[in-house]
């Protein structure tokens, strides 16, 4: 049905789309790409620290965004998108961790960590700490990253990891001392 007669009653002020979230929810991949650019650093940092491995972190990051695209319809606008994405990242990273982590007790070679110097932060990025975290045993690493880096509480961590609260505290205890050992002595 053509609408060729032009009725200009009030012209819409069409600024460039400032909120990519609405575009992405409507199905626009370009808007979603903007969300990706905005949030990928955060997601990657979390995946990197939780997995301790650059290659794995890249895979996990991709998984997170693909899952986010697929389930964007369930996102309720009351909470912040970044929090929603953060929870999704933790969920994806720890699901992978749950499946594979228990077997891996070896200390990861430091070389596997991507060179993160100068990225993401202004000036000196604490590479030694990143490497030491990557070298932690998986359980201790997960709890340390979630508690001391990301600020979760033990009950939340216990729930996400499927462990007891006491175990979570024990992991944190161990992680902090192992890190201190690696970095200060």
């Amino acid at each position, binding site marked *: 049905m053509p609408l060729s007669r032009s009725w200009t009653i009030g012209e819409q002020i069409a600024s460039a789309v400032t909120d990519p979230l609405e575009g992405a929810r409507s199905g626009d991949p370009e808007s979603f790409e903007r969300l990706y650019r905005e949030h990928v650093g955060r997601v990657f940092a979390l995946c990197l620290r939780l997995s301790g491995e650059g290659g794995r972190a890249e895979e996990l990051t991709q998984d997170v965004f693909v899952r986010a695209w697929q389930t964007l319809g369930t996102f309720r606008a009351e909470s912040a998108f970044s929090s929603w994405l953060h929870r999704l990242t933790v969920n994806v990273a720890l699901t992978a961790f749950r*499946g594979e982590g228990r077997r891996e007790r070896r200390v990861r070679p430091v070389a596997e960590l991507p060179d993160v110097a100068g990225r993401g932060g202004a000036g000196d990025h604490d590479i030694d700490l990143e490497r030491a975290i990557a070298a932690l045993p998986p359980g201790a690493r997960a709890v340390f990253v979630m508690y001391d880096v990301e600020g979760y509480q033990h009950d939340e961590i216990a729930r996400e990891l499927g462990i007891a609260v006491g175990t979570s505290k024990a992991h944190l205890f161990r992680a902090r001392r192992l890190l201190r050992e690696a970095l200060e002595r």
Partner: protein
Amino acid sequence: MKCRMMDSRLDAFLDGALPPLERRSVEAHLAQCARCRAEAEGLKRIIARARALPPSVQPPRDLWPAVEAEMNRAVVESLPLRRDAGRFAWRLASRPVLAAAALLLVALSSLVTWNITRAGRTAAAVASAPLVAGAATLVELHGIERDYQLAAADLAATLDARRASLDPATVAVVEADLRLIDQAIREARAALIADPANEDLGHMLSTAYRHKLALLQQATRL
């Protein structure tokens, strides 16, 4: 408080999680014990360094093309299976459906397909092939079918997660067509089991599975 009792309390103390009485006890000890004080300071430094880590780290390479490729998968030719143990890319089209050669006698488990119903996901047996003594059975068919079932279940799970945002009329269309495809799968499968060397039937069964996965995939992209 003695030094040996401190260690287990230091973390809780530093995290502000001790009840007031215990906290004062720890503070009192720290005031007059250099060793424990040094320990506490060391832990505090680690915690501070952790908090100071940049919240954001850019990946060394641009991951968007891979993400976009996943988003835009239009052809049901390769489907990564997401399982905890890791993923592997897996191709449908290049598999032969059936080997015409002699086959092993294997018990075929009943096959399950996920149906999306209003009451939630239920598993319905597509067909259970009875074990017929002396008949050659279909190892390859079983393996391929299992892969199809896994992929379909994977897609159905994704679709389930999005159901709330779909119009019920749309869900009804998807369900009705899934039932039609499932019936086609049952019929082709039964015919193939009765005539295992028939390549056309193998092709038709494979096509029916492909329709199912394509439909599920199309529905997940709504």
